Each structure stands twice: as C-alpha cells, then as structure tokens.
C-alpha cells in the first residue's frame, strides 16, 4: 500500500523545512489560547465523566462513566487508576449498557396463585418482614437465611451480617463467594493465619517470570494479562501457562504445559522436591519465618448431607517434610500428571533461581478444586521455601472473580463462621462485634451453621424455610443444580430474590424485589489487591428499584431493630462505612476513611498513618511488622508462616469405562458469570450468543463430530445437549471436554457434581466424569 520511495535523507530534509516553517508560523500574530478557542464549541462528546470501579470482575479496574441527560452513555478506562491505567476489556467498555435491558425489573412482584402480581415496595417489604417473623416463630431463628454475593457492595454485606448475625442471631449468612474464593481464604488462613494477598498488582511490573496455575488470564483477567504482555514487550519477562486446556493464554505464553486434572497437587509437590534436592531453599528465610505442618488426609468429598470435617494440624520437622516429598520426584509425578519430568524441572528451576523474581497467579483452577485449600497451600510452599514472597515481584497472587468478593464477603465476613473482625467461635471477637453493633453479646451464636452447599441442602430437607437471595443467580451456578432447584420449589419454602433482571433464580421466588444496580446507588467494592473503591450515585434507578442495602434496612426496621438500623436515608452509606471501619481499627487491617476513597482511585488496606500498604509482612512496607526482622507473618501467633505437607489425592469422581471423559466448566471473555447482565449487552450477546461444548479435535474426529454438531453429555446427574466447538476458542486435552456456564438455556450445572473441598467447602466445578456422544 505504501509507495515508500522517500529515503531517509530526503525525509529529514523535508522535516527540517517543515519545522522551520512551523517555527516561523508561531511568530505570526493572531495566536490564540486553547480556552478562548473552545469557548463557542458545541457540547458534543464533552460528557460529564465520573469515576467508579468496574461492575464486573475482581480485578477492579477504574472506569470513567460518561453521563448525558441523566443516562450513562459511555465508558472509558480511568488513566489515574493504578489497577488498569486506562485500559478496560470489552465487558468494561460496554458495562453501562447492562443497566438498560428492556426487561429490567422496576416493580416488586409477589407470587399469588402461581402468578406474579405487581405490588408496591412498601407492601412487598411488609410481606417479607412478616414472613420472616412467622418463620422464626414457627421454626426457630436458624430457619431463616440470607444468601448474598461477592457483588454485594460493602454496605450491603455489612447490614446483612448485622441483621442476621447481630440482631436475629443466626449464622445463616452465606455468599456466592463460597463457590469461588473459599479455598483461597482457607489457603491464606492455614498458611498465614490472615486472609488476602500479601502483594499487589504492581508485582507484575517487577517480576521476571509468571506462572499461571490453571488460569486462563487472557480471557478471565484480560486487563491484568495485557499488563503481563506489556511487561514482556518492555522487559522480556517469561510467561508459563500451566493448565489442563489450551487457550488464548497458552497461545500467548512463552511455554504452555498441560497437566491431567487434579494432578497439579503432585506437580506442585514435585517442584518443592526439586527445590530442596538442588539446594535452592532459602535456608535463613525458612529457619526464621517458617514452620512445617501436616494435616489429616483422605478427607472425603462432602458428597453426603451433613458431612463434617475438621483438620488436625500437627507440627513436623523439615526432615519429615523432605522424606514425604520423596514420593514426588519429577520422574514419579510424570506418570501421574502427564507433565514431563523435564517440564517440572523447568518450572522448578525458575522458582529456584535466586536472581529471578517469580509471580504465581491463579484463580478458579486451584480454588474450585476438591483439594482447593491444599492446592493454595502448595503454591505458598513453593514461595516460602525459596523466600520469594512479600517483596516487589516475588508474589504468590490469588486473583478473584467478583468485584467485591474480597471487599464484602471476605473483609465484612458474610460467611457463616465469620464476623467483620474474626470468627463467631471466638468469644472476644463476638464481644467486639456486639459492642459496635449495639446488640447483646448473647445474640451472636458461637456455632457456625451451614456453608453454601449445605444451606441449599438444608432448604431441601426443610431445616431452612426462608431464604433471601441478593445479587446472585444460584439457580444457574449451584453444582448438581436440579436437586437444589427442586428444593426451592418445595411447599413451605419462602424465597425472596433481589435482582435487576428476571433470571432462573427469580423464577423460584415468592417475592421479587427490583434492585438498584452499581452506579444507580452509592457504594464501595474491594478488589483482589486489597483496594477499596468508592462510587457515587450517578443516575436514578428505574421505577421503584431500591439498593440492596436499603431493602435490608427497611426490613430490619420492620423487624423491630430501629435502634441498630438508625441510618438516615440520605447519608446511610457514609454512616455504615464509618461504623464498619471500627471493626478493622488496627494496624493489620485499617481501612481508609471515606474522604480518602472519594478522592483517590481506591485505596489499599492496611491504611496506616495516611499510607496504603502495598506489601504486607515485609517490614520495609508494612507498619504492622513488629518482630524486628525483615519479615513478620503476624497472622500466626509465633509470627511464622506454615509450609504444609499436603499429598496428592484423586478427585471425587474420575473418568471410568461408563463415563470416560473429564467435564470442565468455566467462563468466556464476553460473558461474566451467569450472563444475566452481559447477555443484555447487544455487542456481547452477538459475539457469544450461546454456550457450547469444546472437544479435542482427535476425539471429535473419532466420534465424527464436526463444529456445530449437537453433542449429548451425560453424567450420573443427568444429560444435556450442546453444540460442539472443535478447534475454536479453546482446545481441551484428549478425553476432556469444556463447557462455559453462562447460558441459562443450556444449564451445564444440571449435570455437574456437588463435591467440595472439605476444608473450604468450595465445590469443584472443574472435574467430574461424563459420557460424550453425538446427539
């Protein structure tokens, strides 16, 4: 296309002439200032831009929303946000369109004789309150429950916890983050005694090698992945994709290593074996800062109702640990995992090289894992053995999938055993919370009740009679879905759903409340790197839609808790946040005041003496370190992190003669979670209109399945028919299939298994046995 006849010399000559002319031009009179020039300009394209964290994933990109005549009309990345530095992904750029779907819920709906009838917000809230009172009277306080979400803003989760745990006195508070982050939490608690990553996104700008553990970052955390690619362009960093399936991430990575499902446990241990064998252990670090522990094994998979498990940690010596690892030589692990000994040594060599800074990144791969807590522990083991932790660029980094999985579920503590600070089992923690909540300490029950899967099982059994579901879509996301859908439809169950659109979950509701979403109200989210971000109300919610926070407050008042829910309608978000901050008023977790959040693109906690903490446990950066050493793992009493002896154990249901394939589920870049928002964004729906099943090309060829052919998947739970996707977005390894879960018309979770990690109680959506046939 170019007629590039100009050579360099003539180009430079012309340039010189040009610049001389330009210089001359500036000497002419009549030059104007920009302000004067702009005075009479039309307003087109000159929108009012307001900052918010993105509505979708846990990366927590800063976005600027363009408002015109009271409507959100455009989005761009916030260049001031240190998270995304001005870049977004396709979901973020089109996020405001998610508020304008035609079927937006604008009025409360109450089910009467099998039909939904429009009613007023007041009547609906009255009904909910009276139904709650009635249920508590008839079946006890533990028969009412709330199921929230990592998309709850901080105030939503806070008032939910205060109402249910503090006022009603039941620990029936759970959130969908149990299905995605629970293993990360138990991983942190067992290894470090305190939740959430020690590092931050800035580690990406310092690390030399990135190991992605079962993490298709190019699609799931694209903005961070672009930051990795940018670093590769500038500094030549290495990206290693360690996964079960070939994806865009594998294509972009410098090396793609495939392992068989569940064997990441063995490979991680083999890496530790190599590190010790080759003398790559950072001895002084391990001696000063680490203990060795082992726990129970053969824990089971939680498949039966009322399954209980409690780990028994036991101290071991380094020699014991070394002996245990002898079962995990690269040569032995090669046979289990399908990863060559050479590749294991390759990864170990990067972790072991003292001159390389290594960042491990993971999300649902190690978390939605029947040994999720173990897998998290094992990754920390590698970083602890080599001392590559809590310093810029040396970072085991657990990513999240929801905008406030960290901010709300993990920090506010909307899980059955948690309080905003500490756990319900601890007397001091209960007393501390009760004081701030202004409730008698006896109100807070010292016994945790149900985790998410068990909560839905309790609904099935009838132990739970009332459930309020907010900002989440469990009738698409629960594993072994059919059982729980039938449970919710049973006689004598009362379900309230607060949402913005009709979903399979509103289909089972007795009352549907229209919610105000995202920037239609005020709130805060907390992202993966401990960053709390505030957003103001920018536009009016449609119809009678009301924020989840205010819905809860209205019901709490009707239940007679006016004293605890004293908040003023105009200032309640500020009041709640100020009250919430009291729970974290210490050097290890202090949250920034609201004024600081308003002025900045978010602020990381611990926020101490006016400064955020980027690297925790490192005394150079973290003011909470008090042992006088370089590092202080203050989550544990003796200030030491724990290296865990965790073996390889098989998955709950592995392929056999009858069901010979592995079934894996996950997401795609265009859709977020169950697609209730992204499918209403035309650009995204048109790009990815429906779900599909990915097959390995060899398997497809053998079964004579072409791209687009109908394929029947059968598991012990049921069957489903999906169009085939051969050699498209992703390529599963032979004898494995992959299905995205966003499509409510093709509910893959009808056939997944509800096995979970016994420690974290997080289900394993990535592994069950399936039969594949041409339909």
């Amino acid at each position, binding site marked *: *296309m*170019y007629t*590039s006849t*100009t050579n360099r010399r003539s*180009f430079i000559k012309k340039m010189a002439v*040009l610049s001389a002319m*330009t210089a001359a031009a500036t000497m002419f009179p009549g030059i*104007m200032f*920009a*302000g004067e*020039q*702009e*005075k*009479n*300009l*039309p307003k*087109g*394209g*000159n929108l009012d831009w307001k900052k918010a964290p993105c509505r979708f994933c846990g990366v927590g990109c800063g976005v600027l929303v*363009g408002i*015109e005549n009271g409507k959100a*009309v*455009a989005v*761009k990345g916030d*260049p*001031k946000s240190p998270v995304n*530095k*001005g870049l977004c*992904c*396709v979901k973020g750029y089109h996020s*405001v369109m998610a508020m*304008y*779907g035609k*079927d937006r819920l604008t009025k409360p709906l109450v089910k009467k004789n099998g039909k939904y009838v429009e009613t007023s917000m007041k009547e609906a809230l009255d009904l909910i309150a009276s139904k709650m009172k009635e249920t508590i009277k008839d079946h006890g306080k533990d028969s009412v429950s709330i199921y929230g979400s990592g998309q709850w803003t901080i105030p939503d989760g806070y008032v939910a916890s205060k109402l249910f745990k503090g006022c009603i006195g039941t620990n029936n508070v759970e959130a969908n983050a149990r299905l995605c982050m629970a293993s990360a939490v138990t991983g942190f608690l067992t290894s470090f005694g305190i939740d959430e990553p020690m590092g931050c996104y800035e580690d990406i700008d310092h690390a030399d090698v990135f190991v992605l553990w079962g993490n298709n970052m*190019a699609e799931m955390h*694209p903005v961070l992945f*672009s930051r990795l*690619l*940018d670093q590769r362009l500038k500094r030549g960093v290495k990206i290693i994709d360690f996964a079960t399936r*070939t994806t*865009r991430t594998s*294509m*972009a990575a410098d090396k793609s290593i495939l392992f068989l499902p569940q064997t990441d446990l063995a490979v991680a241990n083999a890496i530790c074996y190599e590190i010790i064998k080759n003398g790559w252990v950072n001895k002084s670090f391990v001696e000063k800062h680490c203990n060795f522990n082992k726990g129970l094994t053969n824990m089971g998979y939680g498949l039966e109702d009322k399954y209980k498990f409690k780990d028994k940690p036991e101290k071991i010596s380094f020699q014991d640990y070394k002996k245990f690892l002898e079962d995990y030589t690269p040569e032995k692990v090669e046979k289990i995992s399908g990863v060559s000994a050479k590749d294991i040594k390759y990864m170990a060599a990067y972790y072991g090289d003292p*001159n390389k800074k290594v960042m491990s990144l993971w999300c649902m791969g190690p978390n939605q894992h029947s040994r999720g807590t173990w897998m998290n522990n094992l990754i920390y083991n590698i970083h602890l053995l080599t001392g590559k932790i809590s310093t810029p660029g040396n970072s085991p980094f657990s990513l999240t999938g929801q905008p406030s999985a960290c901010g709300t579920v993990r920090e506010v503590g909307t899980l059955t055993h948690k309080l905003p600070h500490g756990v319900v089992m601890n007397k001091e923690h209960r007393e501390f919370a009760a004081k701030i909540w202004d409730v008698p300490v006896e109100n807070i029950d010292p016994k945790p009740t149900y985790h998410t899967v068990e909560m839905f099982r309790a609904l099935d059994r009838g132990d739970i009679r009332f459930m309020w579901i907010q900002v989440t879509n469990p009738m698409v996301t629960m594993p072994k879905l059919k059982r729980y859908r039938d449970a919710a439809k049973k006689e004598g169950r009362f379900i309230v759903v607060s949402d913005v659109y009709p979903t399979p979950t509103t289909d089972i509701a007795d009352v549907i409340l229209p919610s105000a979403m995202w920037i239609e109200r005020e709130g805060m989210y907390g992202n993966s790197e401990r960053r709390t971000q505030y957003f103001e109300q920018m536009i009016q919610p449609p119809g009678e839609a009301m924020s989840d926070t205010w819905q809860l407050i209205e019901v709490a008042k009707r239940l007679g808790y006016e004293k605890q829910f004293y908040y003023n309608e105009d200032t309640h978000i500020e009041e709640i946040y100020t009250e919430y901050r009291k729970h974290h008023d210490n050097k290890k977790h202090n949250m920034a005041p609201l004024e600081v959040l308003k002025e900045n693109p978010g602020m990381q906690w611990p926020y101490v003496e006016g*400064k955020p903490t980027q690297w925790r446990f490192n005394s150079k950066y973290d003011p909470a370190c008090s042992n006088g050493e370089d590092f202080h793992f203050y989550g544990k009493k003796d200030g030491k992190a724990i290296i865990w002896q965790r073996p390889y154990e098989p998955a709950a249901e592995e392929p056999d003669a009858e069901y010979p394939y592995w079934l894996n589920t996950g997401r795609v*870049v265009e859709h977020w979670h169950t*697609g209730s928002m992204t499918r*209403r*964004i*035309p*650009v*995204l*729906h*048109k*790009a*990815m*209109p429906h779900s599909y099943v990915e097959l390995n090309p060899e398997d497809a060829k053998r079964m004579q399945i072409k791209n687009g052919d109908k394929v029947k998947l059968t598991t012990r739970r049921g069957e489903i028919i999906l169009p085939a996707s051969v050699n*498209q977005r*992703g*390529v599963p390894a032979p004898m494995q299939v992959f299905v995205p879960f966003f499509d409510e018309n093709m509910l893959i979770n009808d056939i997944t298994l509800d096995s979970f990690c016994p420690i974290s109680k997080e289900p394993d959506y990535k592994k069950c046995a399936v039969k594949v046939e041409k339909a």
Partner: protein
Amino acid sequence: MRKRLGIISLFIILCIAFIAIWNYSYYQGQEEAYIPIENNRPIPIIPSETGVFQRSEFALDYANMPVDENHQRSMKTYYDNRAFHGAPPSIPHEVTSERSMGENTCLKCHENGGYVDKFEAYAPVTPHPEMVNCRQCHVPQKTQSLFKGTNFKKGTIPAVGINNALAGSPPVIPHQLQLRENCLACHAGPSAPKEIRVTHPERINCRQCHVPNNKVTEDIGNFIRKIEN
C-alpha cells in the same frame, strides 16, 4: 627460553582471561541488591502525548497517496460497529483463529493497513498495535438477534466540521485520546473516514495546533493571575 615465550605469554593471557571471566560471572551470579520501590509514582493527568508521532514515518507516504474514492470509509460506517462514541469497535468480519493472540493474525492487516480484495475495503489501522490481546476488547458479531431488547441509547456523537472557533482556525479534538493518541492511524491514509481525513498528514506534530477539548484534563477553574508584591 625465547622459543617458549609464545606459549608462556599465551598461558598468562589465558590466566588473566580466566580470572576476569571468573570475577565477572561471580558478580553476575550474586543476588541483585535491593532497590527500594518508589511509592505512588505520579500518574500523568494529561494523556500521554508520545503516541502522536508513532506513525510519523509514513507521513509523507500518506501525503503523496492518491485518494481511492470508491473504497473510502465514511463516519456512518465508522459508527456502525461501535456501541457508542468511543467504544471499541466490534469485528465486522470472520476471524480465522478463535484462540490466537493478535500479533500474528489481526496485526498482519491492522498494523499498517492495506487493500483487502475480499472485503473490497482498506483495513483500518490500529492506533495501539502494542496491545496484542486484541479480542480482550474487540469481539466479532456472530448473530444479529438479541437475548433481550435494550433501551440503551447512544450518546451524542461529536459533529465533524464545526470544531473550530473561527473560520479557518484549527479544529480542536472533540474526542477522547485514550488509546487513540496516534492521530495518523485514523486520520490519514486510505482507510481514514473521508470526513475526518487530514489534508496535511506530513505536519506530524498534530497537537501543536489541535488541542484536546474534553474533561480528561483536571478542571482548575478560571485562570487567575497570581499577583505578588
């Protein structure tokens, strides 16, 4: 003795070389000294201006290139595949590989543009070729149907040709510059929409005369002279 001088000096050289290499590799092998990280690096408020020169090497080619009037784009087609003004465009054609990154696929055509027979059009040039995970933001459209309808309305699109304050004065930039800092990518060459194709691509330093008119820059209120003494 004389005879051996050669071999002895060779050994001496080898010896020195050995010591030098030994020392070099020893220091290389040592762990890097700790470099403190500077906290809170200021993030520039004004969008980076470096992009403006990115395609300047082609400026003269653009100037000399004849206009192919039969295959030029217009603002209408420009906005057809954008959800709103400033949104990343969707991909209006099929993509060969669902899985690959952009550097060996998308960028083959969209880095420098060129006429594509199949589509009877010139490939638009990307203003940010350094970002290779193209389909992080740009997605193809596989269906025309919708899941549910939408009430979303495109905001006002800035008009072309009225952005100058005086007759003949240089128009201001009416759009956001983020990811579009490289002016020539969209405003020059055969793929540039006819309404916004620049008549003088060879001048390169666009923002010498054309200033942004948007609220990216911090509002500091009215400018008031500070009078001292």
